[in-house]
């Protein structure tokens, strides 16, 4: 185990359609925001970690060159990671490892996406090779709808029950987003609005699905010594986990989903958590689709397999419930893909340090952040707490 690591700052741009500024200026806005929050500057930073979803989205292959100045990375070591949806968590873990190893005392981690500049679904077709999988797992709605349906069929869940639970998640999150000043889509919806919205990929409907967003997020990781000197109130990294899966889709089970289960288990073990639903105060789950959020509750041990829909309808995972999930509105309301996983870490850190503003969960001390990526291939978890 490495040395203790703190999060001493988190910053986000306003997310949405940011076509009014160039991409480097958007990244700079995120970087300025995290420097302001942490009260440090470029001279304090030992290394920079940056990433986006696959660079075909950006149309510029070497983004860490394009954004070198915006990241204030000149003269410093810089590492890049891109794992599609889980990019942000890959970045967070890279920053964490770097400080935990003792090789750096303070690392700036930044993720970004400007989805209105490119074609996200076309980019996702390039995630797979053109011999076989490209034709059938192209586009996020296809792959996640298939996985959701697999889950529904496995447990013989009634369509009515699952659709109600998914609709509740959508209604709650789009309403929660009003209390998150940087969220993209904020909307008052009724259950019927969601349930009767247009089918995009059955069973997923329009309001079950995240938007295309532009945005950037920055998080600064620091050693215990630095954190205690600089920051009155840091968040501490209590546990991390990451797990990947095979290339050939569905060679392993996507319902009792090994990578999600293992990533959480690794993080729980490191954090000393044995009963997540009792011990965690808040969770920020990577939820680009309502159904996928339900599936994750089960994989993370928040409830038994096949039971997430019932518990969701009882309000267990709502903002005033036992374990509030995605009080920020989550990925469902804001999805600048390369930043989205890192936003989960930023939001969890904000919650456990009492800095979440209008969407603060009262007395939150232990927070769970998660991202998934690839073609349902990667899952990563970071648990943060208010105490070292």
């Amino acid at each position, binding site marked *: 185990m490495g040395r203790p690591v703190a999060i001493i700052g988190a910053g986000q741009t306003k997310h949405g*359609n940011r076509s009014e500024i160039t991409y480097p200026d958007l990244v700079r806005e995120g970087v300025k925001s995290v420097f302001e929050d942490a009260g440090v500057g470029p001279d304090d930073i030992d290394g920079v970690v940056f990433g986006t979803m696959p660079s075909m989205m950006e149309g510029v292959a070497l983004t860490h060159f394009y954004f070198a100045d915006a990241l204030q990375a000149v003269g410093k070591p810089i590492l890049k990671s891109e794992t599609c949806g889980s990019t942000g968590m890959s970045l967070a873990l890279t920053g964490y490892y770097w400080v935990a190893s003792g090789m750096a005392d303070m690392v700036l981690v930044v993720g970004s996406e400007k989805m209105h500049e490119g074609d996200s679904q076309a980019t996702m*077709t390039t995630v797979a090779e053109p011999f076989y999988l490209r034709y059938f797992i192209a586009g996020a709605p296809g792959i996640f709808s298939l996985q959701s349906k697999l889950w529904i*069929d496995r447990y013989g869940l009634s369509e009515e029950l699952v659709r109600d639970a998914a609709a509740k998640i959508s209604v709650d999150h789009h309403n929660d987003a009003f209390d998150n000043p940087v969220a993209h889509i904020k909307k008052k919806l009724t259950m019927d609005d969601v349930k009767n919205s247009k089918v995009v990929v059955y069973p997923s409907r329009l309001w079950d699905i995240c938007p295309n967003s532009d945005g950037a997020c920055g998080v600064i990781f620091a050693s215990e010594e630095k954190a205690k000197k600089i920051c009155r109130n840091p968040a501490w990294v209590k546990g991390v986990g990451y797990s990947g899966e095979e290339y050939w889709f569905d*060679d392993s089970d996507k319902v009792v989903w090994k990578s999600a289960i293992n990533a959480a288990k690794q993080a729980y073990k490191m954090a000393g958590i044995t009963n997540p639903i009792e011990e965690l105060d808040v969770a920020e789950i990577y939820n680009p689709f309502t159904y996928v959020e339900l599936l994750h509750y089960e994989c993370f041990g928040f409830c038994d397999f096949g039971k997430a829909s019932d518990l969701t309808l009882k309000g267990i995972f709502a903002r005033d419930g036992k374990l509030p999930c995605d009080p920020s509105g989550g990925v469902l309301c804001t999805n600048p893909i390369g930043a989205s996983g890192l936003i989960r870490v930023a939001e969890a850190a904000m919650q456990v340090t009492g800095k979440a503003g209008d969407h603060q969960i009262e007395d939150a001390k232990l927070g769970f952040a998660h991202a998934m990526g690839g073609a349902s291939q990667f899952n990563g978890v970071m648990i943060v707490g208010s105490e070292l």
Partner: protein
Amino acid sequence: MGKNFETLEHQVWLPYKFSVGPVFNRFFEGLKEGKILGNRCPKCNKVLVPARSFCPECFVDMGDWEEVSQEGEVVTWAQANYEFFGAPAEPPFIGALIRLDHTDCNFLHLVGGFDLSDIDAVKSKVKSGARVKAVWSDVKKGHMLDIKFFEPE
């Protein structure tokens, strides 16, 4: 927001030549002849389809080739109702995981051959466990889409 800001229109067009290799070569030759070919792992004995060069789980070279059944069961499915770049068909179309008879992994392909305009009618026809059978294109090019789709019985 909502204002139309000026953007620089740009396209990246890059040619690639992906090596097909001996295993996909033989698999695609099979498709040209109207056959679906798999192969068996000598260690775990699983029949995988499409045929692969090595068993991902055992990390050994795959062994004997076999022509697998063109019939099987729908494991699960999703119906796409939107157009996107690189889609395998005009919407609506159904992507499905299909377990071909006597194989040990799920085969990803399309289900079709009937009216997909009414989702309730589709749901009554395509269920988990429904029997389906491969329907081939008239012209076979040695390509995954030589199989047009799998049609429910």
